[in-house]
């Protein structure tokens, strides 16, 4: 009966773990799939403590919007905090141009429209246009990036130069009409992150609620600016403190090599078990196959992100799964001399269980601390340590099940037939 249940479970797990179906997929980490891991530090020094939380969550939202608009599938944006420093961790799988992504995310993109006050109209008459700009005072208006409804890339009618066209919200359109109406014949500056992008001369009052930002943009820059304006400005400035980019080729090589190493390793372990324990070793190997299939299925169901250290964690758990069997078999050898074979089997399962339980709980505790499921900020909240610990913990959990339940029932059948 139990064997049938195990068999059904095995088939179910096999179905999930085989790549034939599309419903469950194994998520590969950035080091295997290729991609960028970026960590930004938010400068919250100018924000009052009460507002910090909301501005951080809106920071996360803005970054998420920017990344989504950039067209990256399944990005992951997380906030983290360590000793009062606020961080934003951005993971971008499969991103091809990491430099672009860093620029796109890291720029504050604070857009302000300002009126330009020339120092003195008579004195400046002799100055060139550039010099006038230098002496001019910028007076910011109440029209900012927040008044935008939408922005998109456009091309200059005359030179075909890329520019960014913006559509204001209704309120923004009214502000824009008022500002242009009051400044006919003067310049209105468009300021992005404290830098003047352009300061066109106002010819007439503009009521359509639309404007164009023309600067010396490349197409990429115009696209980026348009995304940033659409997603909104960052509520606090951020600075890149960590970047790890793995090209897709290196990732694919790592996967191929790890899989090869894993297969060779498992074959060697299986051969060793047969050499050391004969037919029992064969049972252990069957248990090992069940272990592998169940683990893979659970990774998929839990959405475990598999990284290189994660693979190492899995391989280590294979070792521990085999250990449960070895403990039982060694015990069985001892007990066999003193009692009947079937009885000896049950006794050795019972005795070995004590060591297996105590030893595996110690490992599980360590894996739990490293995986840090409660997100304690004083422990690792992301990165390789966590990936490793999660696969190790899952592996140990399943090895307890296969070592005791699966191997035990298989051995029982085996010994009955021998009789």
């Amino acid at each position, binding site marked *: 009966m139990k064997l049938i249940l195990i068999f059904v479970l095995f088939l179910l797990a096999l179905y999930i773990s085989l790549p034939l179906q599309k419903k469950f997929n194994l998520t590969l980490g950035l*080091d295997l799939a290729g991609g960028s891991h970026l*960590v930004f*530090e938010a400068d919250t020094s100018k924000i009052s403590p009460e507002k910090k939380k909301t501005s951080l969550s809106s920071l996360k939202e803005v970054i998420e919007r920017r990344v989504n608009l950039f067209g990256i599938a399944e990005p992951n944006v997380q906030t983290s905090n360590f*000793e009062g420093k606020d961080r934003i961790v951005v993971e971008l799988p499969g991103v091809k141009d*990491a*430099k672009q992504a*860093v620029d796109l995310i890291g720029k504050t993109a604070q857009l302000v429209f300002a009126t330009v006050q020339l120092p003195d109209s008579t004195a400046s008459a002799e100055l060139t246009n550039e010099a006038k700009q230098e002496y001019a005072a910028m007076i910011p208006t109440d029209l900012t990036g927040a008044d935008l409804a939408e922005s998109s890339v456009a091309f200059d009618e005359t030179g075909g130069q890329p520019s960014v066209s913006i559509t204001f919200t209704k309120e923004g359109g009214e502000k824009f009409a008022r500002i242009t109406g009051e400044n006919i014949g003067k310049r209105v500056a468009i300021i992005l992150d404290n830098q003047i992008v352009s300061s066109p001369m106002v010819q007439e009052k503009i009521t359509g609620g639309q404007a164009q930002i023309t600067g010396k943009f490349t197409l990429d820059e115009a696209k980026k600016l348009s995304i940033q304006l659409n997603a909104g400005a960052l509520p606090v400035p951020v600075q*890149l*403190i*960590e*970047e*790890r*980019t*793995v*090209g897709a*080729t*290196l990732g694919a*090589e*790592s996967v191929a*090599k*790890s899989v090869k*190493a*894993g297969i*060779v*390793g498992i074959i*060697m*372990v299986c051969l*060793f078990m047969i050499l050391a324990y004969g037919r029992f070793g064969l049972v252990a190997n069957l248990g090992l196959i069940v272990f592998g299939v169940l683990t893979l299925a659970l990774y998929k169901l839990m959405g475990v992100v598999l990284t*290189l250290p994660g*693979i*190492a*964690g899995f*391989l*280590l758990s294979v*070792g*521990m799964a*085999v*250990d449960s069997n*070895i*403990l039982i078999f*060694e015990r069985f050898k001892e007990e066999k001399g003193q009692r009947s074979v079937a009885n000896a089997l049950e006794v050795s399962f019972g*005795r070995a269980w*004590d*060591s297996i339980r*105590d*030893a595996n*709980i*110690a*490992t599980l*505790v*360590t894996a739990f*601390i*490293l995986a840090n499921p409660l997100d304690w900020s*004083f*422990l*690792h909240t992301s990165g*390789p*340590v966590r990936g*490793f610990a999660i696969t*190790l913990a899952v592996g140990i959990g399943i090895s307890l099940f296969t070592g005791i339940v699966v191997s035990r029932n298989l051995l029982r059948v085996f010994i009955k037939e021998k009789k």
Partner: protein
Amino acid sequence: MMNWMKYRWLYLFISGVVIAAGIFSMLKWGFKIGVDFTGGVVAEYRLKSGEDKIFRYGPLSKEESEKIRQDFASQGATEIMFESVGPSVGPELVKKTIFALLISASVILFWITYQFKSFKFGISATLATLHDSLVLLGLFSIFGHFFGTEIDFLFVTAILTILSFSVHDTIVVYDRVRETRKKIGGSMTEIANMAISQTMVRSLNNSFTIIFMLAALILLGGSSIKWFAAALLIGTVSGTYSSPFVAVSLLVTWDEISNRFMNKSSEEV
């Protein structure tokens, strides 16, 4: 039955020599510490000639690293890997790791003490795991000097893993000590000899299976986890050695000393 404990000073001496060599190297040469801790840039490029090359820089500003990337791109090189770590990241990693180590070690200490109802067991097991960490740290300091092996974030993971493997192995032996003491009894030395004899084959066989897996990873796995697998391998060997020969030797020695002390005090009374 083998009288394992007769040679326990030899085991501790061997451990002492390995650890002393490691400590000597740590003091004299220190470690080659990777960018994960020092901050800086490591980049790997496939050059136009088809050759893969790794470049290292100190901490760079955003503009500087952008310039490097542009230079390589203009030379027709493709980026295989680019890691840039700010100087503030390293100290944070070190702190978090120390917290993780302290918490795991104390939880293990209490778990073993609770399971075996004696601090002798808990402390001896913790000392054995400390032994394994020191062996690993020392050897990597030596490797760093001779082969340029770097201490990176994965190495930290390896240390933490070995900590749990070592305890795993020690508990199996201790478990036997506990069982034998309950059933047969006798002096601690006799019990220890019996327990070690009974678990020796299991310990070796188990280590072999793990060593097979790790050897496959070292020989066939990618370059990015080669040293990680090597660290785990050293830890596995050291952990297998330390369970019977360090953890149990310490336990027996401690027991002897405390018995002698107790006998003395009872004689005086």
